[in-house]
């Protein structure tokens, strides 16, 4: 057992943190205010070659694992960029896993390099208004018409669709009633997000304003057959390949946000003097922060355990889900406690913790709710009967 990062992994932390220093708290504060996508940041990450960290080397990636990708994403979040920073490149890091695993050599050659260079920005069209956690209930249709599919329907919670030119889209190619199982009959595409056939409506939301979330409506959008990934009807199974790595990354990102919040709170508690001594000298202030440190580091161990299991090719589901759950809870508590440590200033935007607080709500509910994580653990790990 070795709990230490390798020298290469430590150097990822150092180099990424260095780039992030160029994007300080004011940068993210301004973007949270204006809602502008952080292009300067994503360009800097692309220029550093980080977008391809988990992509194969023959297509310009670094060929590293989810462990390294988690280190990258955690360093970004921990720098103070929080989810505004992490979500700006999150999909590039893991989203194309189905293409890597099931795409043809020609597809990989065509699809991966532009994403790694940052020339393409991809979004993810999976969730629908009536198919959130039960993905198999998807109703967006893709009908074969000669050498192309025609897509109609709508997606919701599609992040970065305002700035994306590509979409990884799942749609029904065989009606559910003609399939043996509900998860069959769905196909996966990686294709142009052609605005001639697509309407994108931004959803106003509580936090992470600079990374847009959207409703996306398709009106007879054509997709060339060569943009279909793998076999027709197996798209949902391919998508599952990407779910565990995403949960590991979200866990690592959440912990980064929690650490950033604790850093601000600790600095403040050392400096703020009340009744002639720093408030950080009070156990009523220090113990909750210390407790949060313990919770974050424990969750972090599970996150990197999950990453290790995934990278070794074994089933990472229990740990990936457990880590997502624990990390979001721990980070949420850390943000709450940090905000409380700052008193009334914590509520003012210029101290930044309130932005972390609004953003840390996201990993609590996405990409899967805590209830469904618990149901998954109950069934798959503890062997309890399915409750739904």
């Amino acid at each position, binding site marked *: 057992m070795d709990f230490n990062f390798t020298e290469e992994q430590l150097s990822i932390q150092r180099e990424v943190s260095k780039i992030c220093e160029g994007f300080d708290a004011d940068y993210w504060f301004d973007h949270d205010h204006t809602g502008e996508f952080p292009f300067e940041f994503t360009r800097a990450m692309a220029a550093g070659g980080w977008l391809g960290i988990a992509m194969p080397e023959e297509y310009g990636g670094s060929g590293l694992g989810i462990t390294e990708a988690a280190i990258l994403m955690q360093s970004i979040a921990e720098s103070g960029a929080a989810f505004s920073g992490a979500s700006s490149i999150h999909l590039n890091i893991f989203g194309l896993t189905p293409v890597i695993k099931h795409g043809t050599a020609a597809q990989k050659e065509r699809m991966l390099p532009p994403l790694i260079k940052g020339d393409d920005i991809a979004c993810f069209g999976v*969730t629908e208004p009536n198919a*959130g*956690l*039960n993905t198999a209930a998807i109703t967006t249709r893709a009908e074969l018409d000669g050498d192309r599919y025609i897509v109609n329907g709508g997606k919701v*919670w599609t992040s970065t669709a305002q700035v994306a030119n590509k979409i990884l889209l799942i749609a029904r190619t065989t009606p559910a009633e003609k399939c043996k199982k509900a998860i069959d009959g769905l196909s996966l595409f990686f294709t142009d997000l052609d605005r001639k056939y697509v309407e994108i409506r931004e*959803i*106003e*939301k*509580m*936090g992470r304003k600079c990374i847009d979330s959207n409703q996306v409506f398709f009106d007879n959008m054509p997709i060339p057959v060569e943009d279909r990934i793998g076999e027709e009807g197996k798209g949902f199974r391919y998508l599952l390949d990407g779910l565990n790595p995403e949960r590991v990354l979200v866990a690592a990102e959440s912990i980064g946000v929690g650490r950033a919040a604790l850093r601000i709170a600790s600095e403040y508690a050392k400096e703020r003097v*009340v*009744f002639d001594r720093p408030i950080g000298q*009070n156990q*009523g*202030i220090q113990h909750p922060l210390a407790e949060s440190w313990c919770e974050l580091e424990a969750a972090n161990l599970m996150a990197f355990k999950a990453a290790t299991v995934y990278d070794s090719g074994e089933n990472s589901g229990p740990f990936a889900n457990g880590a997502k759950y624990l990390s979001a809870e721990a980070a949420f508590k850390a943000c709450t406690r940090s*905000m*409380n440590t700052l*008193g*009334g200033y*914590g*509520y*003012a*935007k*210029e101290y930044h913790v*309130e932005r972390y*607080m*609004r953003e840390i*709500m*996201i990993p*609590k*509910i*996405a990409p899967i*709710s*805590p*209830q469904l994580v*618990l*149901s998954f653990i109950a069934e798959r790990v503890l062997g309890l009967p399915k*409750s*739904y």
Partner: protein
Amino acid sequence: MDFNLPEEVRMVAESVRRFSTEKLLPKYQYWDKTGQFPRELWREMGELGFYGSLCSAEYGGSELGALAHGVITCEVAHGDFNSAYPVLLNGGMSLILEKLANNNIKNEWLPKVLGGEKFIAFCLTEPGSGTDAAALITKAEEDGDEWVITGEKASVSLVMEADALLVFAKTKQEDGSTGVSLFFVPASSPGFDRAPYDDMGHKAVKRGSASFQGVRIPKENLMGTQGRGFPEAMKLFDIVRVLLTLMCVGAAEQSIDETGEYIKEREAFGQPIGKFQGVQFPLVEAHSHVELIKLYCYRTLWLRDQGLPHTKEAAICKSMGQRFCIDAIYTCMQLHGHYGYTTDLPFQQRLRDTIGIEFADGTSQVQKMIIAREQFGREILSYG
């Protein structure tokens, strides 16, 4: 023991709830998105008597008492959390003005405060002093028939709209010692300036800083006894902690009601999600916590109406009540899934708004210090 609300309070509660549902709830998110100050609406609430329960009939109050005032605060917060703020503020100001102001100020300002025409902000906190209020450095010096006030105040609620301010400042006493005194300062006074904060919530009720650069006010604008301003004002103010908590209770109850409807309608895996215990139990816990804290708030206000001590009880309300409510609202938001995170639904706003109460009038840490002092004695005070 009688746990029923008095008949007159129950009737007030019903009519306020009606107003709250019809007039406030539909606009709650509008005020947040525009950041506008709902002056007309707040005047209407004043005209309806929402602010007057704590004030004597002589100045236009209803004398319904603290319990009624708390019930009104809670019912208003059901519709619009932020519109409960003038109930608290103008009600609290009526207490201070009636007890401590001279007759001129009382006659001129009290009816307008109760009628929702005028708003008075409370300036205690400074950039370098909050919890340790005695460490404030704003000063008031005598000059002929006037006081001259100089200093900076921080975290002043409603600062941008206030027509006058109650300002705590250091004064030199006759025996040479320094005391804290309370002053009434019209916002039109030369030398007064203000700037808003950009806060997470409370968009319609801006908090901000207030600056007093040689602001001159008449001698008689000293409120109460010179050098005793802090204890004289604060002993009237235990009630504020209960009202702040009841604002959160109103917002939480409304959220729980709405979520109860939602989980009956929203289906997943072929049945309403409310049938899943993983969904219904968290909502049940939220409801239970909010019920408990509401009862305790009512009891604290009842103590006040009986003329009994309630400093510790008020601190208990504020030390955990707002946290129960924030957690309850968060549960409601989370049970709405990702939709709860949109600004189309009110939960994220209720969350942002109620979180602000964590810091108002003493954080939960400060409340615990008060509870420790009142329950276990001064010898275990962690300070001094």
